[in-house]
């Protein structure tokens, strides 16, 4: 038995992982989540802003991390729309524009009263990373003279008087790496005191704790952060409970739970085998 387990082939571990993630996905079960104080800080910040506040959403992620970050982005966008905030979308990642479009599609489908140009504007992508941030903090039109459709920002009611982003009420950055949270903190939030909240992947979250609470007002970490934000939104706006699309993050917590339990089981098993092997080696 010991020999068999000790030489367990990777394919069996892969099969276990596949089943641990696949079965809960197929069962579509969601688990009860309780929003943690950090998530509530972020939620309350968006909630407490007066209706019509201007929010800049920079979605700096790609399809690889969309599984983790898109539910978060969607939860933010829905919350902003429910509060009737004005949203300016942009991205620092070349593959980011479709990430913005996915969220604009949510606005079009679920909030048909939301008008492009008046309630939200899509600035799209510009190359330069931190250079873009640095420039738009002092002069928006030097980087973005027109929106993603080629319409001059001066012709759109939401952006016609927007000279730079220092005057925005909240900066929301959903990021999977560089350029992302750190660049926004260094070149926008800190020097110009722009209130900022972020959403990030699980692997980048520990690094971003460094900036809380002074430079960042709050952070949503990984899919759990998204699930908790969705839960907080459902508590505040019960109509969201009837929208399955507004519970993507919550649904993804069940596969995560089983995968984590499998990881713990395998770590324990690996260590038991390690110590048994060591004892056998010692006794022999």
């Amino acid at each position: 038995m010991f020999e068999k387990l000790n030489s367990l082939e990777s394919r069996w571990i892969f099969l276990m992982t596949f089943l641990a993630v696949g079965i809960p996905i197929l069962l579509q079960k969601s688990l009860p989540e309780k929003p943690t104080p950090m998530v509530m800080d972020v939620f309350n910040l968006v909630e407490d802003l007066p209706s019509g506040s201007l929010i800049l959403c920079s979605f700096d992620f790609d399809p690889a991390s969309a599984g983790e970050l898109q539910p978060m982005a969607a939860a933010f966008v829905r919350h902003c729309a429910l509060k009737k905030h004005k949203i300016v979308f942009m991205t620092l990642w070349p593959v980011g524009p479709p990430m913005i479009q996915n969220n604009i599609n949510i606005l079009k489908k679920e909030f048909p009263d939301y008008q492009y140009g008046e309630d939200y504007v899509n600035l799209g992508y510009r190359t330069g990373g931190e250079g873009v941030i640095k420039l738009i903090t002092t002069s928006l039109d030097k980087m973005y003279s027109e929106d993603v459709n080629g319409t001059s920002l001066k012709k759109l009611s939401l952006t016609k008087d927007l000279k730079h982003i220092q005057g925005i009420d909240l900066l929301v950055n959903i990021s999977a790496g560089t350029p992302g949270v750190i660049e926004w903190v260094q070149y926008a939030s800190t020097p110009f005191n722009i209130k900022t909240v972020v959403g990030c992947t699980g692997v980048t979250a520990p690094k971003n704790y460094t900036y809380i609470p002074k430079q960042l007002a709050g952070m949503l970490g990984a899919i759990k952060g998204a699930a908790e934000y969705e839960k907080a939104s459902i508590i505040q706006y019960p109509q969201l409970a009837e929208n399955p699309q507004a519970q993507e993050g919550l649904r993804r917590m069940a596969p995560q739970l089983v995968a984590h339990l499998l990881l713990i089981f395998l770590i324990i098993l690996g260590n038991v085998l390690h110590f048994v092997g060591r004892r056998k080696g010692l006794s022999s």
Partner: protein
Amino acid sequence: MKRTVPLIICSLTGFILIISWFLPAAESWGEKVTHWFDIVAAFAFVLGGANLLKIHLQKISNRRIGWGYSAVTLTAFLVTLLAGLFKINVNPSMNYPAYSWSGNYLDEGGLLWWIYEYLFVPLSATLFAMLAFYITSAAFRAFRAKNIEASILLFTAFLILLGRTYAGSLITSGLPDSLAFLRFENLTIIIMSVFNLAGSRAITIGIALGVVTTSLKLLLAVDRSYLGSD
């Protein structure tokens, strides 16, 4: 000349950015330089594309091992590039319906959108998802309590793994309020916002000091390694 001009550009640009930060009168200089940076950054895409072509064409022409993969890479690169540059199958923008090329290159229905939606998205997601399989395999084979440091790491990993799921809340939900800090979800918060925070800040401050030193060496032309050897 080949080395002096880049050195002057680097020093001048860096010092202008520093001065513009501290002197309000020089703020517009910093803006101008940042604008240059953004324009030059766009050229990096062209250079990157040219470099990709050069490396893979060389590999194909020399029939080096794996040249077939290079052919696939080049085909994918060129098809995607042409689909985007020529806006193949993209409808004209509503603002300028008379101009067939006025639509957005990534508009729904276009060839680039099709490549993105049905090739790039599933391939990226698949590659990222495969990490889960390797992490699980590594957890079984490599995560061993071989010494005290590894044991502490292992114990912390357990707490985080449980604390980030409903199982953690469920297991310790019976603890009285006076011991609420021992609930897995609260222990996770303590680990992340105390121990992790202290370590991360120390590393971040260390990196910042290193960046200042390195930047000064670059601006004063003490470190010229970025110019290459010839």
